[in-house]
């Protein structure tokens, strides 16, 4: 496969961009050789969540970046493990890890607990979970597209996209009862069925989006302004995406066919033959820039529509939960022992939940959450390299960061930042294992 390099000045596809950069940035002017530090964050009008990015700039060009997280650690895992909560209560806590992927975390968490406790999920419940999570993907990707347009300074497109997004939120409210935080999955199934009266409304929404998707693709991808601002900006090459373990649309935009729904199908996803989408499906060679990320996310809206259509057509009949009575479920979970892993392709990438249950204990013994941004954050380093200051907002936004979902403890002792080494972490893990085995 011949991948073209956007940084190559002889690249025939991007001549204008490269020339322009030469004019604005080149030349041995005084002051350009000096390197300045530009701190952005943790609280900054351009950032939606607290994170600190320290850029080292030469003129307008970024020569280095340092990322520091740890400003919004909420200790949700700790709350779920230590405060005498039972698993049903922790389920709603897991839903509040992320507001936008508010069904992705419960889906991964319920799967983990179901594997640990040996609970079967009826087929109809699996289909309903798939439908809700795909509807959520549509809303999340449209939200991201609007935010991206806003970061480009193209607010008309933001309002256009978010007007379109309203419909899917209405459908989610109709199906679950709330626009955000749907509270649909529960251990062993789902809490709300899709009734025959609701099918026509979902079909209507699918038709609405089918008609609009082509217009959206046109508005985003065939617009000279968007193309000039995003082509060759924030490039994550395929090799770097592989090496930094990028997930979700960030990795797929670089040409990696990486999607948990394709690689390790869970729930009913094996019925739909999901194939990871890369810019190749739109007839483009994957570059890994912001433009490709827009392509991938908009195409995934269409893919989600396909999956919902198939799911609605082939919806099996039957029970929606294997534990209709919650007290019986709680009793079963109290007896359960073991460990389980749950995964899900959230709109931002792969989310993983690990749980460990102990017999006779209602609460969780261990709960570990890996949010997709945790994997994607590192890909900021190659993306920011050699870019301009004006492109910082769109590059920061292009991985769809969710800082609070992934934030970890940052230790500051006596005013000094402490970092754990590999050996230190290994020792901690040994100690924890010993404590658990006792």
């Amino acid at each position, binding site marked *: 496969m011949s991948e073209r390099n956007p940084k190559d000045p002889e690249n025939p596809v991007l001549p204008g961009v490269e020339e322009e950069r030469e004019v604005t940035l080149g030349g041995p002017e005084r002051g350009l050789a000096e390197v300045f530090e530009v701190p952005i964050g943790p609280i900054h009008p351009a950032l939606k969540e607290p994170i600190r990015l320290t850029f080292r700039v030469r003129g307008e060009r970024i020569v280095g970046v340092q990322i520091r997280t740890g400003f919004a650690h909420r200790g949700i895992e700790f709350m779920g493990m230590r405060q005498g*909560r*039972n698993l049903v*209560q*922790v389920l*709603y806590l897991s839903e509040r890890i992320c507001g936008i992927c508010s069904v992705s975390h419960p889906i991964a968490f319920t799967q983990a607990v179901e594997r640990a406790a040996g609970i079967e999920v009826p087929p109809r419940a699996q289909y309903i979970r798939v439908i809700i999570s795909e509807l959520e993907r549509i809303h999340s990707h449209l939200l991201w597209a609007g935010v991206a347009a806003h970061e480009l300074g193209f607010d008309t497109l933001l309002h256009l996209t978010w007007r379109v997004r309203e419909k899917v939120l209405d459908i989610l409210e109709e199906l679950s009862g*709330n626009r955000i935080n749907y509270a649909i999955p529960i251990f062993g199934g789902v809490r709300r069925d899709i009734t025959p009266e609701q099918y026509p409304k979902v079909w209507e929404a699918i038709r609405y989006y089918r008609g609009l998707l082509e217009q959206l693709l046109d508005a985003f991808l065939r617009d000279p302004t968007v193309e000039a601002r995003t082509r060759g900006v924030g490039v994550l090459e395929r090799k770097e995406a592989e090496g930094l373990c990028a997930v979700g649309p960030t990795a797929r935009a670089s040409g990696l066919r990486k999607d948990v729904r394709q690689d390790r199908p869970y729930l009913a996803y094996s019925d739909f033959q999901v194939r990871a989408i890369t810019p190749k499906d739109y007839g483009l060679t994957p570059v890994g820039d912001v433009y490709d990320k827009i392509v991938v996310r908009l195409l995934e809206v269409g893919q989600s529509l396909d999956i919902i259509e198939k799911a609605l057509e082939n919806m099996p009949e039957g029970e929606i939960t294997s534990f209709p009575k919650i007290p019986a479920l*709680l009793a079963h979970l109290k007896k359960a022992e073991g460990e389980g892993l749950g995964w899900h392709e959230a709109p931002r990438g792969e989310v993983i939940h690990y749980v460990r249950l102990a017999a006779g204990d209602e609460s969780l013994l261990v709960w570990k959450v890996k949010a997709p941004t945790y994997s994607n954050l590192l890909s900021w380093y190659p993306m920011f390299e050699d870019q301009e200051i004006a492109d910082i907002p769109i590059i920061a936004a292009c991985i769809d960061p969710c800082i609070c979902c992934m934030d970890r403890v940052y230790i500051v002792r006596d005013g000094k930042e402490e970092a754990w080494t590999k050996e230190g972490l290994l020792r901690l893990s040994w100690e924890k294992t010993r404590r658990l085995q006792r």
Partner: protein
Amino acid sequence: MILKTLISQLLSRPATNQFPTKYMPRSVTKFLTRVQAGEDKVHPPVQVPARFRGKIGYDREKCIGCQLCIRVCPAKVIEFKPETKKIRMHVARCTFCAQCVDVCPTAALSLTAEFLLADTDRGSKNLIVE
């Protein structure tokens, strides 16, 4: 495409529902007293769907005091009163997951469509259900 959208937008009615009034009244209290006197009227809000999870309704007569709702509530909204064997709910803490409604064996708890719950006092009458 832009022209078509523009014209259709010009001709269509605004999507915003003018709730509770078309224009901000100069004095809210005066407006409310006039509404009560029947001189002015409130624009109704947009209809919520049937499954909407609003403020929890409580039927005191049906409650048997089994405390199952307290066991499943993730936000510790529900307080048990042992002398009467009934519950009191602090709606200000509620996350509206409706798990208590699902678990209630006698259907004493129910979902209502009420969503106007903004208040300056957590203990106000509107936010305590018992």
